[in-house]
C-alpha cells in the first residue's frame, strides 16, 4: 500500500466507490481494464472455491448453507479488518514517532492481524451459525478465505482510488500475496492436508515402515532344527471303537503321551457358545531342558493349527526334559464327507534357533528376476525408441523441413499419389497376404507385407504423380496450369471437407442428438463440408498465385510436432494401462508404454538438437549438388551425434526408472511384484522390492552421470 501518492494529488472517490460495489470495476473505469479483470476474477474464483470446499464435510454437501455462511464470514471479516486498520492508522498517526517503529509497523500489523484472527475465529464461527450447522461445514476454511477476500476487497478499493490507467499503476505485490494466501488456505482443505492425522497414526505404521526400511531378514533362507513328537487321538469316541494305544516314553528321543487317546471334540453352537470336549492329559519328555515347546493340533486332513483357548499351548520344559499339561480337544471343522471316528494328531514341537544358510530366499530370487525384467524393459524401450524416433525427429526439425516447398499442382499430384499409392499397396497386400498364411498364421510377416507395400507404393506414387503434374503444368500455358492447380486443390479440399463433415455429424452433433440424429444429419453436414472445403482449397490455390508454392515441409513439421506432443503429454503410466488393455498384463505392455513415450520424448529432443546445428555445412553440401539424403547423412548426422548420445542416455535413465514402477498398473517388472506384496500385507518382501529399485536407480544415475561426464 506504499503507492507513490505524491505524483498524483488526489484520490478518485468515484472509482473507489465503484470498486467497493464490484471489485475491479473502478480500475476498469480508470482504463486499467486487465487489472480490473484480474481483481474481479480472483475475488469470484476464491469465493466460489471457498463455498465449494467448505461444503465438502458431510457426504451430501449443503451448498446453500455454505454460501450463506461464507457471506456472514465475509461481513464479519470486513468488520474485523476495518477495526484493525483503524487501529493501525491511529497508531501510525499518534504513537509511532521513531523511524524504527514506522519500519516495523506493517509487518507487526500483519502479525497482529493473524493472531487476532485465530483468537477470534471460534466466536466468529458461532456468531451466526448453530453448532449443528457448523458440523456441516469446514468453517475455518470458509472463514479464513473470507478474510483473505475481504482484505483483497479492501486493497482493491484503495487501489481504485489511486490507479490512473496506464499512466500510474502502483505495485500489485500485496494483491498477489493475498491471492496466494487464499489459494494456500483452500489448497490445504482440498488436498486434505492434515498434519495431526499424520502424527497420530505414525505409531501404528511404525512397525510396517520399519519392515519396509530394513527387510533383509526375508532375503535369505534359514534352517531350523526342530524336535517333534506326535500322539494320535481319536474323536469322537463311540463305544466299541478301537482307539490308538497310549504312547510310552522313549529313551533318547522326544516323546509325548496323551490320555485318554479317545474323546469328544469341543463344539460351538450357532450362537458361538462353546462346549468343551474331553480334557486330555499330556505328558512329554526327551526335549531340550528349560526351553519352551509348542503344541499344535492336526485335523484328519493334516492341517495344523495352534489350539488357542483350549489350554496352554506354549509350555516350559523342566530341567529333566519333561513336561506335563492339560488340553481340551479343540473344536475342529471336519469335512462333511468324513463320517464316524477320525484320527487327529497332537504335535509337540520344539524349535531350535534359526541358522543362517547364506542362500537367497525364494522371495529374494523372485524380486531379483523381476528387477532384471524391469531393467531389460527399460533398455529395450530405449532401443526401440531410438530406432523409431530418429526418422520422426528429422520430420520434426524446422530448419530441415522449412526449405521443402511444392507447387500447388505438385501438391495435388502428390496427395492423389499418396492416397492412390496407399490404396494400391493395400490391394496388393490383400492379394499377397493369403499366400503367406494371413493375419492368423503369420501375423508379423503379413503386417510387414502390408506396411512395406503401403508405405513404398504411397511414397513412390507421391513422387511420381507430384513430378508428373508439375512437369505437365509447366508445359501448359500458365493460366491453364493455374486453373488445374485451383481445381485440384478444390478437389482435395472437398474430400477433406466431406470427411470432416461426417466427423462433425457423428462426433459433435452425436453428443446432443444421439447416434440416430447424427446419422440423419450426416449427409447434409458432409455435403456442406465438401462445398466449404472445395471453396477454401480453391481459394488457397488462388491466393498462392501462378508462381506461389505450398510450404509442404512446414505442414509435415507441424503435424509431426503435434503427434509427438500428444504422445509426450500422456504419461507412461497411462500408456501402460492402454498397453495392458491391448496385450494383457506383463512386461510387454510396459515395454509398449515406455516405447511410445520414448519415441515422443526423444523425437522432440532429437529434433531440437537438429534445429540447433550449424547451417553452414548444410549450405556447403547443397552447393555441391548433394541430394537431401546425402546432405542429412554428411552434414546433419555428424553434428547431431553428441547431443543424440546425451539425450539417449538421459532417456535410458528415465526408462529404467519408469520400468520399475510401470508394473503398478500391470506393466510387468518389479513394480508388479511390489504392488502384489503390498496387497498381501507382505511388507518385508515389499521392502525388498523398494530397496532393489532404489539401488538400481541410484547405480544407474551414477553410471549415466559418469558416461555423460566422459562425453563432454
Amino acid at each position, binding site marked *: 500500500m506504499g503507492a507513490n501518492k505524491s505524483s498524483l494529488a488526489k484520490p478518485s472517490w468515484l472509482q473507489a466507490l465503484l470498486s467497493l460495489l464490484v471489485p475491479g470495476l473502478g480500475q476498469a473505469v480508470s482504463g486499467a481494464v486487465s487489472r480490473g479483470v484480474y481483481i474481479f476474477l480472483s475475488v469470484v474464483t476464491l469465493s466460489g472455491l471457498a463455498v465449494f470446499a467448505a461444503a465438502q464435510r458431510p457426504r451430501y454437501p449443503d451448498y446453500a448453507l455454505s454460501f450463506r455462511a461464507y457471506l456472514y464470514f465475509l461481513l464479519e471479516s470486513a468488520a474485523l479488518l476495518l477495526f484493525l486498520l483503524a487501529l493501525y492508522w491511529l497508531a501510525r498517526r499518534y504513537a509511532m514517532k521513531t523511524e524504527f517503529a514506522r519500519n516495523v509497523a506493517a509487518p507487526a500489523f500483519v502479525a497482529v492481524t493473524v493472531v487476532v484472527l485465530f483468537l477470534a475465529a471460534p466466536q466468529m464461527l458461532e456468531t451466526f451459525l448453530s453448532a449443528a450447522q457448523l458440523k456441516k461445514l469446514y468453517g475455518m476454511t470458509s472463514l479464513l478465505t473470507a478474510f483473505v477476500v475481504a482484505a483483497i476487497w479492501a486493497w482493491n478499493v484503495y487501489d481504485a482510488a489511486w490507479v490512473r490507467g496506464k499512466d500510474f499503476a502502483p505495485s500489485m505485490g500485496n494483491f498477489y500475496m493475498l491471492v496466494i494466501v487464499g489459494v494456500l488456505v483452500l489448497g490445504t482443505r482440498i488436498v486434505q492436508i492434515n498434519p495431526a492425522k499424520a502424527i497420530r497414526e505414525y505409531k501404528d505404521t511404525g512397525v510396517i515402515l520399519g519392515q519396509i526400511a530394513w527387510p533383509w531378514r526375508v532375503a535369505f533362507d534359514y534352517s531350523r532344527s526342530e524336535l517333534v513328537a506326535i500322539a494320535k487321538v481319536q474323536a469322537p469316541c463311540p463305544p466299541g471303537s478301537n482307539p490308538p494305544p497310549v504312547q510310552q516314553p522313549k529313551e533318547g528321543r522326544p516323546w509325548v503321551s496323551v490320555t485318554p487317546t479317545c474323546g469328544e471334540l469341543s463344539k460351538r453352537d450357532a450362537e458361538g457358545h462353546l462346549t468343551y470336549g474331553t480334557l486330555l492329559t499330556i505328558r512329554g519328555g526327551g526335549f531340550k531342558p528349560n526351553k519352551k515347546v509348542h503344541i499344535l493340533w492336526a485335523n484328519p486332513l493334516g492341517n495344523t493349527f495352534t489350539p488357542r483357548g483350549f489350554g496352554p499351548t506354549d509350555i516350559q520344559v523342566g530341567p529333566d526334559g519333561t513336561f506335563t499339561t492339560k488340553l481340551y480337544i479343540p473344536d475342529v471343522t471336519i469335512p462333511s464327507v468324513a463320517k464316524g471316528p477320525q484320527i487327529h494328531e497332537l504335535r509337540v514341537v520344539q524349535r531350535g534357533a534359526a541358522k543362517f544358510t547364506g542362500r537367497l530366499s525364494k522371495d529374494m530370487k523372485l524380486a531379483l528376476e523381476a528387477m532384471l525384467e524391469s531393467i531389460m524393459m527399460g533398455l529395450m524401450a530405449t532401443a526401440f525408441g531410438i530406432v523409431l524416433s530418429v526418422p520422426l525427429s528429422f520430420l520434426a526439425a524446422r530448419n530441415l523441413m522449412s526449405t521443402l516447398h511444392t507447387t500447388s499442382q505438385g501438391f495435388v499430384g502428390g496427395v492423389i499419389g499418396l492416397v492412390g499409392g496407399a490404396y494400391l499397396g493395400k490391394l496388393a497386400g490383400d492379394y499377397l497376404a493369403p499366400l503367406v498364411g494371413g493375419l492368423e498364421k503369420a501375423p508379423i510377416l503379413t503386417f510387414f507385407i502390408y506396411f512395406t507395400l503401403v508405405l513404398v507404393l504411397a511414397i513412390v506414387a507421391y513422387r511420381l504423380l507430384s513430378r508428373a503434374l508439375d512437369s505437365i503444368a509447366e508445359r501448359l500455358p500458365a493460366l491453364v496450369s493455374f486453373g488445374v492447380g485451383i481445381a485440384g486443390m478444390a478437389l482435395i479440399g472437398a474430400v477433406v471437407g466431406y470427411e470432416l463433415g461426417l466427423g462433425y455429424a457423428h462426433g459433435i452433433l452425436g453428443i446432443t442428438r444421439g447416434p440416430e440424429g447424427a446419422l440423419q444429419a450426416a449427409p447434409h453436414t458432409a455435403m456442406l463440408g465438401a462445398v466449404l472445403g472445395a471453396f477454401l482449397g480453391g481459394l488457397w490455390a488462388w491466393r498462392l498465385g501462378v508462381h506461389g508454392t505450398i510450404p509442404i515441409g512446414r505442414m509435415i513439421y507441424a503435424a509431426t510436432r503435434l503427434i509427438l506432443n500428444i504422445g509426450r503429454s500422456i504419461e507412461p503410466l497411462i500408456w501402460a494401462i492402454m498397453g495392458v488393455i491391448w496385450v494383457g498384463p506383463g512386461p510387454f505392455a510396459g515395454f509398449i508404454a515406455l516405447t511410445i513415450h520414448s519415441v515422443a520424448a526423444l523425437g522432440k529432443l532429437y529434433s531440437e538438437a537438429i534445429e540447433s546445428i550449424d547451417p553452414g555445412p548444410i549450405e556447403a553440401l547443397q552447393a*555441391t549438388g548433394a541430394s537431401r539424403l546425402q546432405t542429412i547423412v554428411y552434414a546433419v548426422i555428424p553434428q547431431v551425434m553428441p547431443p543424440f548420445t546425451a539425450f539417449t542416455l538421459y532417456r535410458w535413465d528415465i526408462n529404467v526408472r519408469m520400468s520399475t514402477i510401470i508394473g503398478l498398473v500391470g506393466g510387468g517388472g518389479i513394480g508388479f511384484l511390489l504392488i502384489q506384496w503390498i496387497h498381501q500385507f507382505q511388507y518385508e518382501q515389499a521392502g525388498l522390492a523398494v530397496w532393489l529399485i532404489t539401488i538400481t536407480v541410484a547405480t544407474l544415475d551414477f553410471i549415466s552421470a559418469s558416461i555423460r561426464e566422459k562425453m563432454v
Partner: protein
Amino acid sequence: MLVVEHLTKVYEDGTVALKDVSFTVDDGEFLVIIGLSGSGKSTLLRCINRLIEPTEGRILWNGVDITQASEAEMRRIRREIGMIFQHFNLVERSSVLTNVLTGRLGYLPSWWSLINYFPEREKERAMAALERVGIADKAHNRADALSGGQKQRVGIARALMQEPKMILADEPVASLDPVLAHSILGYLETLNQEQGITVLCSLHYLDLVQRYATKVIGLRDGRLVYEGTGEQIRNITDEEFKQVYGQEAQRLSVGG
C-alpha cells in the same frame, strides 16, 4: 558464360537485398564483387546457385536458365559450380578426407550415402585435391583440429572435387590474416589461369581486389553501381570509389 538479367531478391521480411542487377561474366574471368557490408554480395552469390531463391530476373548459365531449373537439373548445375565460404562451412566433427569427399556427392548415387560408401577412385581424387592445396598429410585429422588457413584450403579441395567450371567465393579470406589471404587467393588465381575456371569472388580489401580481379562489379544497397575491368579498378577515381562505398568513405590504401 554467365548472364545475370534484372535479378531482384526480396526477403520474406521485405528487405530488398538485390534490385534489378544485370551483368555478364565471360568464361575464365576472375570477377570480384565489391560493396559495403549489407550491400547484397552474399545474396547475389547465393542466388547464382540458388541457395537463395531469386524473386525476379533470369540467370543464364551456358544458355540454361538456372532460375527455372527443376530439382534434378539444379543438382547437375550445382555440381559444376564450386562454392567457398568465409567461415569455411566444414563439418567440424568429420575427417578432412570426408569433408573433401562430400564435394563429389553430386556425382554419386544418393543411396550410397546410407552405407557411407565412396569408391576408391574418389578417395584417390580427394587425396590428389588435398595434395594440390598442400595438406595431404592432414587427410585423417578431424576438421576442427585445423587452423583457419588450412580449413579454407580444405574448402578449396572440396570445391575441386566437383571439377567445377565456376567457383563462387563469398569473402573467402575475410577471416584470415593478409599472408594467408594472398596464399588462398593465389590458389584461386592458379585455378583460374591454368584451368580456366571462372571465379566469382566477393572481397572487402581494395588492394586485394586490385591485385587479383580481371573484372569488378560494385554493389550498393542491392544496386549495381560500378562495373569495370581489372585495369580500371587499379586506377579507380575518388568519384567511383565514393559511388560504391558512400560519400563519407575514406580510402585507406591506394594502389596495389
